[in-house]
């Protein structure tokens, strides 16, 4: 799964809307917030939300190409928190990466990140920027190495584990990706989408194995079914979970069912349940599901 497919047209529309609202927002909020005694009289109060909004606007403006507003956002963040704030440093990095024209500019930014990290190796936001830039420069092996080092001293960072899982996944190292996803689930045990993702990775690693009757493959598909079941348990009418359950049980049918710990009947029941739920979701009007996902579900039902 690439970045392209993960962003829906809804999200692009959202970015465009945010970016269009930016100039007005920047004008409405003055650059200089009133200092203490005056701030009691002023209507404009400082809140964490305000700075979160600046951060979000900065990214939206950069994405839509409104560099002037983005620069203004960044300037205000620097004025407020100082250029040496770790989070602000990372945001400045995002800005510079976005306006970089040539590969040489990117190399220079990478050098800057490395100097920063040499001075302070636990600057996590900048370390993440460096990893992202390495990926962007197609240096996946370096990115994985840096990410593993990052996780060594910050092992409770779900975001980093998730990123590492996707890196391993795109490199085809499925067992390592599964390990990383399990680490994410230790931190966020009720995350239904991570359960579904783990199910997908297990399914793909099981289905990519062409040897039939392989006990190990059947084992992988079994775990995949379990993960999808858990995701459905955690989220009502979860299209992604039911879709995966249907696919995984279908695959278990194809691979001989003789090895299964679970009886063939249970698998059959699960498959029927997934079909029923998918049909119900597809038939529903104005359900709020993604159109592409609905179309895929429709195709899957028709095939069976």
């Amino acid at each position, binding site marked *: 799964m690439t*970045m392209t497919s*993960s962003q829906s047209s809804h999200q692009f529309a*959202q970015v465009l809307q945010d970016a269009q609202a930016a100039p007005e927002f920047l004008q409405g909020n003055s650059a200089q917030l009133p200092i203490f005694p005056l701030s009691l009289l002023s209507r404009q109060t400082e809140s964490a939300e305000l700075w979160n909004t600046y951060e979000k606007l900065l990214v939206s403006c950069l994405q839509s190409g409104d560099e002037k507003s983005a620069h203004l956002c960044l300037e205000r963040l620097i004025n407020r928190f100082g250029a040496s704030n770790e989070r602000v440093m990372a945001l400045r990095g995002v800005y510079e990466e976005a306006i970089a024209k040539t590969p040489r500019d990117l190399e220079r930014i990478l050098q800057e990140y490395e100097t920063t990290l040499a001075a302070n190796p636990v600057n996590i936001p900048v370390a993440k920027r460096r990893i992202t830039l390495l*990926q962007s420069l197609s240096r996946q092996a370096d990115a994985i190495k840096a990410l593993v080092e990052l996780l060594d001293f910050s092992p409770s960072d779900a975001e980093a584990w998730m990123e590492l899982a996707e890196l391993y996944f795109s490199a085809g190292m499925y067992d390592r990706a599964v390990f990383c996803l399990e680490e*994410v689930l230790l931190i966020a045990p009720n995350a239904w*989408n991570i359960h579904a993702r783990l199910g997908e990775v297990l399914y793909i690693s099981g289905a990519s194995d062409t040897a039939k009757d392989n006990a190990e493959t059947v084992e992988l598909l079994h775990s995949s079914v379990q993960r999808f079941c858990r995701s459905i348990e955690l*989220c009502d009418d979860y299209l992604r979970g039911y879709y995966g359950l249907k696919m995984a049980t279908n695959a278990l049918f194809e691979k001989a069912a003789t090895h299964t710990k679970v009886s063939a009947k249970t698998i059959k029941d699960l498959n029927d349940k997934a079909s029923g739920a998918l049909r119900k979701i597809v038939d529903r009007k104005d359900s*709020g599901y993604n159109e592409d996902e609905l179309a895929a579900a429709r195709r899957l039902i028709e095939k069976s």
Partner: protein
Amino acid sequence: MTFMSRVLLITGSILLAHACYSAQEVSALLNTNDSPISSINSAETSDSTPYPSLSGTSTRSLSNLPLDVIIETLVSVALLCLGIVLGSEPLKPISWRVWAAKVEREKDLKKDVVTGTEDGYLWLENGRRKGFIDIRQHRQDFANWVRTQDQ
């Protein structure tokens, strides 16, 4: 629902105000009618109990309050309660799976940039991890999207 609740609230307030006014009038009437007796009563009991006049008048006026005023008060309070309950915000889901379904349903809805926060665990998904945002890829995707919109 909001219209209904507003009607109930207004009716309830009017009824309550009317009941209060009636009760006040009734007690005023009683006080003028049998003021000599009540003053004698309070004078008699004042020796035995510390708050004679208070307890004496309150029990007397309550028992003398006409039944329709009491009913009016109770009905108006009930109407006010109903109006407040009906006019309140819809309840938030307290069951995890219902809440999760709501988050999934609303993830693609347009959000206000100032208040729109990402709920649940969506921020862990591909392309949504803020710390690892690949801004150059995002810019390119956005440009491609704009091109398809123009066609």
